[in-house]
């Protein structure tokens, strides 16, 4: 009740002294009382881990932007519709993006299972008017995020498609895979290094094992190292992350073992320089100009160092084969390297190089996903233009996504 008393006092003051504080909008008339918010609704915030209640209301007619006279809303909460209420948060005026007539806010500090009643105080002209929600609200946590049904369907569809084709490939169905120029060149590039008696460098990017591109790069390393072992070419893998070093050693060792030359393997082929992006680039630049490798692979996640590395490699005349899914760095690799695996091709590379039916099957599954997306775009275009249905909204991901 404290608040209403306060507003009563405020109102009395304003009535008694027309020259005080806030000037009334129409001089001469008594100052207006702010009009209240309406249709207060409070409910459990959907699709969350609990401890949150959403409050929404129709804005006060005095909540007008650009006038500077509206002072926002106070949200109060109590255990009964008659109070007592305690202040939980204050929000400024202005409406929601999709429906500006209403305003929504969250009380993220509730106890699950407890019933709360909410009050909204509209504040303007030094006055305050209260509106209270009739229905109580209880917060709870949910076990399925209903906003993500579309994602769930996509996950199931894609997994099923990939698994289906993997199973098909295992049973001996023949699969056609188009040529990928950069990968066709691997043998030639490794062969050249052997002929020239120079090294092969394999740079697996500057990111750690928590990036799936790094993992994809390392699977390619496995195939490249095997070819190198067969050709008896020397391969060097300078890395910028310790976990990558550990993994790359396992990968190269296994490749040498599979190529029937386990004795030629040594841990020194894979070495750590520094975790630092540009420190690593400086180190590789030095190694490249001093050891003049015949072939350099860049496979993994790269940032701004991409061009620093590729230009230095180019200056010594090495054959360079790059591959990354960093869209912002692709132009530089395309400009400075002989071959570049673009985005998805990086992920397809290990399957392509291995010729293993199981892996190739997964590519076919991926393609089915692509076909579905192309169809969705074409069908979506027609539906979207006809105005019959907002097809795009099927693909909106509101929660959970980045």
């Amino acid at each position: 009740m404290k608040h209403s008393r306060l507003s009563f006092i405020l109102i009395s003051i304003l009535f008694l002294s027309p020259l005080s504080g806030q000037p009334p909008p129409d001089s001469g008339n008594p100052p207006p009382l702010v009009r209240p918010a309406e249709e207060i609704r409070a409910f459990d915030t959907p699709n969350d881990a609990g401890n949150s209640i959403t409050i929404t209301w129709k804005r006060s007619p005095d909540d007008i932007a650009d006038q500077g006279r509206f002072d926002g809303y106070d949200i109060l909460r109590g255990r009964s519709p008659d109070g007592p209420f305690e202040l939980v948060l204050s929000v400024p005026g202005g409406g929601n993006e999709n429906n500006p007539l209403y305003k929504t806010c969250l009380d993220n500090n509730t106890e699950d299972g407890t019933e709360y009643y909410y009050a909204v105080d509209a504040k303007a002209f030094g006055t305050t008017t209260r509106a209270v929600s009739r229905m109580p609200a209880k917060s709870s946590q949910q076990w399925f995020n209903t906003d993500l049904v579309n994602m769930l369907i996509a996950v199931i569809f894609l997994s099923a498609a990939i698994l289906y084709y993997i199973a098909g490939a295992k049973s001996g169905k023949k699969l056609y895979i188009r040529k990928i120029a950069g990968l066709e060149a691997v043998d030639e590039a490794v062969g050249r290094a052997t002929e020239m008696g120079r090294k092969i460098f394999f740079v697996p990017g500057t990111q750690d094992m928590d990036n799936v591109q790094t993992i994809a790069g390392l699977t390619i390393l496995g195939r490249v190292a095997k070819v190198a072992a067969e050709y008896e070419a020397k391969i060097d893998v300078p890395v910028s992350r310790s976990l990558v070093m550990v993994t790359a050693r396992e990968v190269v060792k296994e490749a040498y073992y599979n190529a029937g030359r386990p004795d030629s393997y040594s841990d020194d082929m894979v070495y750590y320089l520094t975790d630092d992006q540009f420190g690593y680039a400086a180190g590789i630049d030095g190694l490249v100009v001093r050891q003049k490798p015949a072939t350099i692979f860049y496979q993994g996640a790269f940032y701004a160092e991409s061009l620093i590395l590729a230009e230095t490699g180019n200056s010594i005349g090495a054959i360079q084969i790059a591959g990354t899914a960093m869209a912002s760095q692709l132009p530089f690799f395309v400009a400075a390297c002989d071959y570049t695996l673009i985005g998805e091709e990086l992920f397809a590379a290990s399957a392509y190089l291995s010729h293993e039916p199981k892996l190739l099957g997964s590519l076919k599954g991926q393609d089915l996903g692509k076909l579905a997306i192309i169809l969705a775009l074409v069908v979506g275009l027609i539906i979207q233009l006809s105005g019959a249905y907002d097809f795009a909204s099927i693909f909106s991901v509101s929660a959970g996504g980045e």
Partner: protein
Amino acid sequence: MKREIPMIIAGTVGIVLIIQYFIPAEPFGTLNDVFSDWFSIIQASAIWLGALNLIKVSGDKIYRRHKDWPYAAIIIVSFLVMVIIGFFFSGGRRFLDPGTPFSQMYDYVYSPLTAMMFALLAFFVASASYRAFRARTREATVLLLAAFFVMLGRVPLGDMLTGWLPRWLHMSEVASWIMNIPNIAGQRAIMIGIALGTVSTSLRLILGIERSYLGGE
């Protein structure tokens, strides 16, 4: 067993994380954060392996009197200097506060080196564009033209050259059209492809079909 248990670990963890995406309730809602904390812990432990490797490789060079052995010595010394300053002379947790010896090393040694290495790009974009932007094939010509328009559209010169044309043909307008329409189209195709590639790679890793990262028996 040396490969089976790791494969089970990877598969279980992967599937649990996919499922947690759809479940807001605890403990699933925060599993993502917990696991990324765990990753940081593993990463921070593993850096010992990298650091020791750096010292070993450099130490070998000194021992074998490799022709660049003095530089190998400098690597070891500067590594140790940074580590000792960081752990013993910079106030523990507040090691990066302004004024600590560690932050001074950062400001006066590390920063200028990083910044200059980054700035080398100014030269390399020039030499790369000189070589790459030649109208050798039809594809290369498209690449060249797009780059040319966008580059000119971003300096006053471009608009000066095209000032007499209607506004929508001004170089800066053409450049922003290229950036906003065909460029975005290409970007999106690449991004969608990457999404599918990632999904497929992740699935192969979770199912243990792709397991070269685990090495052999």
